[in-house]
């Protein structure tokens, strides 16, 4: 039996999710427990993306408070110390959420394979990149996926790369109504509206913006990952809230509001990276 702190002798048990481009096949979520823990730390346990995950997978808040930075830090530390064992519940939640996204992608054909990498996106706006295993699954548009990692952000800033818009950083830059904060009228929003406006739309925008940000000076492709999805998503007039809701309900007739509260892994592996 696993304790709340986890059993250091048993590393995180890796599971699989449906492969969005290969019907019936499963693909392991991350290569090993170390990668899985790093992913949870950098995406599920780092602001602002953790807030988005809490909307994608509402059961998140039963594990920890995404608004409590100390709690998130302690969770990540404990995961590292216990070889990921203590983070099994969060990982399982991740598996359940990503599995649903993969299912959406397969159904809507929001999936593209360039031979090296398979990119897919679900109706919550989670982007999956698969290279043999699921290499990453992040909520797109919640800050640069690379800069999500504090360490990487510092490295990028040291190298002179602008990550925030410097011209609008003065005076009232510390706007209480920053992009992640909640406005008063949002209290009237349903969970689906919050998911659409706060998570899905920014994800679609990131994918569409990638069109001109993945090409070199002469138009050659530089980065072929989530930019692959650009041509697959409907036009903006076909992705209004009502359109999205329809797609969402078509993909998830049993659970229109999101993934189940009690996620069940798709398959169990021995944690060595092999199914």
């Amino acid at each position: 039996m696993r304790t709340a702190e986890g059993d250091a002798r048993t590393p995180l048990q890796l599971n699989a999710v449906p492969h969005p481009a290969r019907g019936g096949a499963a693909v392991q979520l991350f290569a090993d427990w170390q990668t899985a823990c790093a992913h949870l730390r950098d995406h599920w346990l780092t602001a602002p993306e953790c807030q988005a995950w809490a909307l994608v997978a509402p059961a998140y808040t039963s594990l920890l408070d995404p608004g409590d930075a100390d709690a998130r830090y302690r969770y990540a530390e404990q995961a590292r110390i216990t070889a990921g064992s203590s983070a099994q519940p969060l990982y399982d939640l991740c598996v359940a959420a990503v599995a649903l996204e993969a299912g959406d992608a397969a159904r809507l054909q929001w999936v593209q394979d360039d031979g090296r990498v398979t990119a897919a996106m679900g109706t919550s706006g989670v982007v999956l990149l698969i290279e043999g295993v699921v290499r990453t699954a992040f909520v797109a548009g919640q800050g640069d996926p690379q800069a999500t990692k504090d360490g990487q952000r510092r490295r990028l800033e040291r190298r002179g790369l602008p990550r925030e818009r410097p011209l609008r950083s003065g005076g009232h830059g510390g706007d209480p109504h920053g992009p992640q904060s909640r406005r008063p009228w949002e209290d009237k929003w349903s969970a689906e509206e919050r998911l659409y406006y706060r998570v899905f739309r920014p994800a679609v925008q990131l994918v569409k913006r990638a069109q001109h940000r993945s090409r070199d000076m002469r138009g050659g492709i530089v980065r072929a990952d989530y930019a692959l999805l650009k041509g697959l998503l409907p036009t903006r007039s076909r992705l209004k809230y009502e359109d999205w809701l329809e797609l969402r309900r078509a993909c998830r007739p049993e659970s229109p509001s999101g993934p189940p509260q009690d996620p069940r892994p798709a398959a169990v592996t021995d944690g060595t990276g092999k199914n």
Partner: protein
Amino acid sequence: MSEPYIRHNLAATRDGIPDAVAEVACWLDRLEDALRDAGPEVTAESPGPQEAYDCLALAAKLKRVRPELIEELEGVEELQRAGAMLDGNGAELARRALGVLNPDAWLEAAREFDRALDEPLDESEEIEGAVELIEDLDDGELVLAAARRLGVADADVETGVERCVDWLCQHADVFLAASVYVQAVGLALRPDLESQDYDLAATALKFAALLDAAEAAEADLTLAHVQPLPTAVVQGLYDKYVEERERLRAVFLAALALKWLPPLRRRVAGRGEEAVQTEARVWEWSSPDGQWLARLVVPDPPPRGDEEMLSLAFFDAAHREAADLVGRPVVLAGVEGTVGQRGRAPLALGALRATGEAPRLYVGTDRVEWELQMKGPDE
């Protein structure tokens, strides 16, 4: 009508890669979000400076766009909503928005980005960084233009932003990585912008500067700016090259004539003497059409000294004996011979040494010179 913001000679534009519709769709989405985040009505608290900034910047940005693109993307409603919001409240929103402008921060970030390019940089990071800086400055300029129109101005901020724009135009090559994005923006801009709205046209000048830089860079890459030399000059250079090549070849062959055969002083090991390890010098020539190969193996030291008979062997491209060449006369280093059975021409080592000539090989009655193959030590 002229198209000041479109450069058809740029490779990406020529290949149809920049997509104005995609870029404008992003701006419309951002405006839609900004209007939503701004809230249903303007109050003392809402919209905040950032939302006000987005509303002003994006409404102005979309006014620069070809109207047909807005219609195609069904974005007329968003523009109308933005207009309605600014009616009556515009000056207040402009005051809030101007408060967040920080030109010094932009300038510092741009200089740091420029310095970062001195080291190898991930290409996608470079593109992202360049686009972010351009888009950030564009939004700022548009906010200023919109604020001016609403009767709100801040001289210090205006001067600061002008400094940023000057820096960008003077360092346009720093932003080359964003070229495809810049081309997409150019495709989206209405060509009659200058006559329609001079203030907004001024905000688009930086894109013209960036496009100029992209054109210059691509011309450098393709050498398009290099004028062809006059034929007489080219012929003169070619003649000089041939002359120099022949001179160097003569020097080389003269040096080779002294060294291509094993030296006489080396003795042949005899009975009761210390054995000398025999090596070989291998020389090869190929026919001008590449169909035939000749090979001469010279033992070093030669077991019979200058009395050693060498065999110049001829092969075809598949390394079969060159039966077709049997009977052809050959001249090697001035020594005459004939290709005999099995494609071999016997030549005496002493005779080759006696001429003192370089190993130039001529084959056939018309004495066609074959090319000496120079090989490295491991070949």
